[in-house]
């Protein structure tokens, strides 16, 4: 299901190419969202070329996130396979009722399983100075919603392939793309880094290691845009001979830590990192599950890093101080090893 990573393509190009291919192969696929038509091609250009190739199946929508998300659900219930783009992940809050009380409910609310093949993709995350309402990582609000699969590929994944797998799932998928990953070249093994899938699933966990001999000193578990901070940090720490095993799950919800357990038990030191605000977060669930399964072998309390529970400032200094950064991760690793 997961083809080998294409050589040196970017996160954005991988998604764009997958969309073009899927729409060529399957006439049931429709693409909906705001400002997605050529020549503009979407706010982050992920839909570039789509409307020229498939003018009938690329539908530019009014600024009605709840409306066109619900529209996609209706299309999916009647045999089509819509992919929805929400221009900024922050706007998912507008569509939340349609996702939680409609799209996800229809899957099992009627006493039997209904196919509801909708993928809602959206860019999350800060780093671009867009301020409080265009920079958040709101996916944690949706984690744990029954019947809703939440996927967030890092750039150690092949995001295009994961998007194909999301469309093939036949159930509602919230597909989270960190906007800072779009221009990044997809990671491949090389230099100090070795990257391999830890699981063979539609939404696999990728394992990134900065050592070839010995055992990991720390297991880091993180997702999505955090790979952008972790890859250079892992290279840097390889020179310092600190062995890092970095697990990057793409599947945020529903979630099981089972694939992580051997690594966690082996090194006994675990750090969870996410960009969302701290408190009631993804890391809390991962920590709870990991702790229940590995408490006898832990050498230190499970450490967690997230961004401050504050609004995201627009200024560079303010945003940098508020969001979790590479320096925060580095000091936490050193703390764990102290």
């Amino acid at each position: 299901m997961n083809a080998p990573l294409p050589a040196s393509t970017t996160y954005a190009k991988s998604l764009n190419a997958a969309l073009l291919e899927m729409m060529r192969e399957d006439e049931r696929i429709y693409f909906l969202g705001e400002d997605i038509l050529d020549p503009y091609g979407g706010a982050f250009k992920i839909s570039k070329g789509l409307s020229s190739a498939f003018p009938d199946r690329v539908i530019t929508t009014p600024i009605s996130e709840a409306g066109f998300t619900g529209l996609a659900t209706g299309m999916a219930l009647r045999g089509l396979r819509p992919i929805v783009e929400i221009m900024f992940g922050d706007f998912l809050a507008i569509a939340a009722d349609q996702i939680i009380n409609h799209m996800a409910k229809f899957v099992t609310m009627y006493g039997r399983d209904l196919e509801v093949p909708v993928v809602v993709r959206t860019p999350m995350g800060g780093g671009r100075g867009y301020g409080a309402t265009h920079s958040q990582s709101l996916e944690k609000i949706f984690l744990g919603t029954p019947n809703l699969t939440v996927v967030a590929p890092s750039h150690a994944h092949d995001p295009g392939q994961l998007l194909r797998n999301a469309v093939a799932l036949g159930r509602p998928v919230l597909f989270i793309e960190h906007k800072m990953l779009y221009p990044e070249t997809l990671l491949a093994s090389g230099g100090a880094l070795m990257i391999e899938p830890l699981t063979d699933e539609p939404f696999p966990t990728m394992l990134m290691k900065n050592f070839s001999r010995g055992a990991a000193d720390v297991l880091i578990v993180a997702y999505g845009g955090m790979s952008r901070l972790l890859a250079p940090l892992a290279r840097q720490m390889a020179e310092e001979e600190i062995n890092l095993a970095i697990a990057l799950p793409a599947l945020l919800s529903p979630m099981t830590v089972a694939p992580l357990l051997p690594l966690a038990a082996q090194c006994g030191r675990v750090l969870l990192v996410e960009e969302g605000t701290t408190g009631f977060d993804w890391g809390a669930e991962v920590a709870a599950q990991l702790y229940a399964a590995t408490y006898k072998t832990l050498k230190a309390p499970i450490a967690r890093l997230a961004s401050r529970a504050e609004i995201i400032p627009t200024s560079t200094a303010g945003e940098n101080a508020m969001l979790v950064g590479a320096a925060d991760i580095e000091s936490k690793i050193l703390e764990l090893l102290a």
Partner: protein
Amino acid sequence: MDAKRNDLLTGFYEKMVLINTVESSLLNLFAEGLLRGTVHTCLGQEAIPTGVCAALEPGRDIVCSNHRGHGHFLAFGGEARPLIAEIMGDASGVCRGIGGSQHIQLGNFYSNGILGGMSPVATGMALAEKRKGSGGVVVQFLGDGALAEGVVSEAFNMAALWSLPILFAVESNGFAQSTPTALEHAGKLSARGAPYGIPITELDGNDVLAVHAAAQEAVGAARGAGGPQILFMNTYRLGPHSKGDDPRDPAEIARHAEQAPIPRARAGLDPEWCDTTDHRIAAEVAAIIQGIRSARIAAQ
């Protein structure tokens, strides 16, 4: 009255009495403690589901319903037994007792309990049917209260923008739960779709023949590439919003009861036949409920 009109009216009368009898029985079951949760009945509004659904093609057209949806289900061809079993939480119900009163799906029938929430979903279904070239029309039933929800306006806009085959069937009963229309809506409620260019027909929603005729015309227009249509049907809910607790003046309700769809239809029919029909349907529904209760006791 000509023969065809008489045939229509007798069929509609039977359907309306079935709806009324099922709804009344549900309220009784609630009072007996045999239903949990809630039920929203459409007592006094029976003409709208009956007249509108009679204008639809089973198997091709689609109905999206709301919290007050039992009448829509029965009028669209759903059977009383699995509906009542569903609302009683019985595994033999249409959705195995999981959906309950407000969450029912069977074939081309879909209901959900979030007011106005089905407007964009129904609009998406209409888009799908149009793109598939099925010729199907979607009917979304919604109340006057739901017109205050933003997604309804979003759906009106998209349906008109893309000229989709959908009929928004508004059942305007004058109240949003306990709040009268005048305390909830500014402007002319029946004109809500007009700025989008959607044709609107306002009519007496208690006249089942008028509802049917208007629905035939609207569904025909939607099917014939005329784009979305709105029927704004004035009616009055004779029962409580849900299972009790009705703050309205009983004299007001009694006044409206005289103008309800069933007595109105009855005036054009043979009273003896009507009495026989009433008794027959009452016995059928009672037998259904007795059957479900007996099976439940036997299973215990």
